[in-house]
């Protein structure tokens, strides 16, 4: 295991992981890879986020869509759990709330495949301090 021994090590590592993550997100086939984040804090899991995450992993494969499904923490929209964030290549991330398997299927068919928005979008209601993200 690589050990971080200096601040320089950390910066190099940061750049390396960043490009690795970028690669994962966009890849060479930037046109095709979609990224899905599932909010998996206690609220999310209690409302079925685990099932939704599994559903997306299985369905993307079934429907031959290249994508990355990862978990993340609380997005803050506890009233709308389970919530997921979908980032289409080249697009701003979109958050969907109250996602059950039916809604998930609709998101895949309409938004991921065709780019059509579907009901249940949650508009981002906060600013982040990460300048890259707010751009």
């Amino acid at each position, binding site marked *: 295991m690589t050990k971080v021994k200096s601040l320089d090590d950390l910066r190099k590592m*940061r750049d390396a992981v960043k490009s*690795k*993550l970028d690669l994962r997100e966009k890849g060479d086939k930037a046109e095709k890879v979609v990224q899905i984040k599932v909010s998996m*804090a206690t609220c999310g899991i209690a409302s079925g986020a685990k099932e939704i995450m599994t559903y997306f992993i299985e369905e993307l494969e079934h429907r031959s869509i290249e994508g990355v499904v990862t978990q993340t*923490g609380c997005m803050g929209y506890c009233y709308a759990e389970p919530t997921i964030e979908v980032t289409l290549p080249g697009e701003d991330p979109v958050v969907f709330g109250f996602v059950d398997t039916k809604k998930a299927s609709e998101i895949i068919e309409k938004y991921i495949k065709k780019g059509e*928005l579907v009901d*249940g979008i949650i*508009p981002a209601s*906060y600013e982040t*301090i990460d300048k890259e993200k707010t751009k």
Partner: protein
Amino acid sequence: MAKFKNHILVCAGTGCRASQSELIVENLNRAIEDNNLGDEVQVVRTGCFGFCEKGPVVKMMPDNTFYVQVTPADASELVTEHIVKGRKVNRLLYVDPDSHKVISDSKEMGFYKKQIRIALRNCGFINPENVDEYIARDGYAALGKALTEMTPEQVIKEIIDSGLRGRGGGGFPTGLKWDITRKVKADQKYVVCNADEGDPGAFMDRSILEGDPHSVIEAMAINGYCTGASKGLVYIRAEYPLAIERLKIAIKQAREYGLLGENIFGSDFCFDIELRYGAGAFVCGEETSLIHSMEGLRGEPNVKPPFPSESGYKGKPTNVNNVETYANIPVILLNGSKWFSAIGTEKSKGTKVFALAGKVNNVGLIEVPMGTTLREVIFDIGGGIKDGKKFKAVQTGGPSGGCLTEKHLDIPIDYDSLLACGSMMGSGGMIVMDEDDCMVAMAKFYLEFTVEESCGKCTPCRIGNKRLHEILEKITQGKGTKEDLTLLRNLSYVIKDTSLCGLGQTSPNPVLSTMENFADEYEAHVVDGKCPAGQCKALMQYVIDPEACVGCTLCSRVCPVDAISGEKKMAHIINPAICIKCGACMEKCKFNAISIQ
């Protein structure tokens, strides 16, 4: 790729839906059809925009035009003007109340986003179980900077200058606390993370630990560097298995990268973290109790001084900070104290995370700059009151806080303003109550909690809170007298004045603040024998309206205690002496003939 050229986003949040946003959607769809735009424009319902005051809200995509207070009648105009002719409907655009400028592009409407995420910066963005994602967002850079480029004094100065105050409730300046611990000489010191979030109705710390555990680990290491501690302990509620799991993974990963352990960043600094589990005692949020609990003892507090910074865990200097406080540290070091202190009010800098819950539409975890008003939090971010009911009060500070009312809605929230209105910041629980909530019952609810959670060490908290609860019980039973109100007030003041620790010193706050703000409601209970909110069962009476009753006998058959009598096809009567107020009859009645008085 996209089939539609235009999207019309209509807010279908509860608040907007109450103001007919569903009808707007219908009308929009009809207008689209009328204009044969079915293939080009799609209407999409969204969750709350957090701007409910000006709802219903409609947003046109892709040009981001933001229309406010849209009515169903406006739908066709939006389609014919905005979509077909490409002209903005000026009268529906938002006008900035300060500058009187019309703002059309929602991208320019940053101010409507009341929230800024600092402590929650990574929650919902990164995979908390992957240290790489944390590093990719500048994780551990602050620790590296501190260890390799700054002296402990410089780091502490930065924290002091930032104006960061403890987010656990007390609001003690964090930098100052670190400095005190640093100055005490000892062979061993400890830093502790208080993750014993016991306030019922608060989940800020859990969310941070579940969403961004590394930020806490990094900050604890920075704290260790500044205070001279080589060991960190996280005292975490056993009721948070997911947070524990993620914290364990994060600690393991940090160790593997050498971000915890010996000679971190090639420096002399060594630091590691252990977990200690709470076991269900609210009082352990008090730092001396927490330390006792970590030592394997009953979580009883000690009289301070000595403060933990002088004599804490195992008698050694110990710096205790809460999760949210820690989560702020790395960014402050990276972005600088100036950046941080520019946010917030004069004496309370930065942001505060609140767990917004209760009778509010958008229950959730929010982070707002200090100085945001309660109105903005409840009505804009929170989307207003559930089921269109009337706002009555908001409880901040949990069992230690107080109930604030309509008149407090426009006060900018910070440590001092909340104290001034008889409540407190607390850890960040914010419970909204509506017209159906009885304030006496609410005070009783909190006292029940305090009675159950009192450790029993000091008299006022052990017996005094019990007596407070008993008096409140008596009042909600309709047996209270005016003298009881006097007793309640005197006892509350004495408990605050004489209790040993923060739990007892604040436990009467829910009583005092409701007595102050809802004096009429207390009076109604003891003088008129009525509960205006209709919540206190003993003060309620179920009655049948003889006009509306058709004598179907359904109610009398469902009554479990045979309290309802009456001939078939004749108006029925409820005998209040027998009625147990279960409400079964009211549920069954098809003619709305039964009501509560």
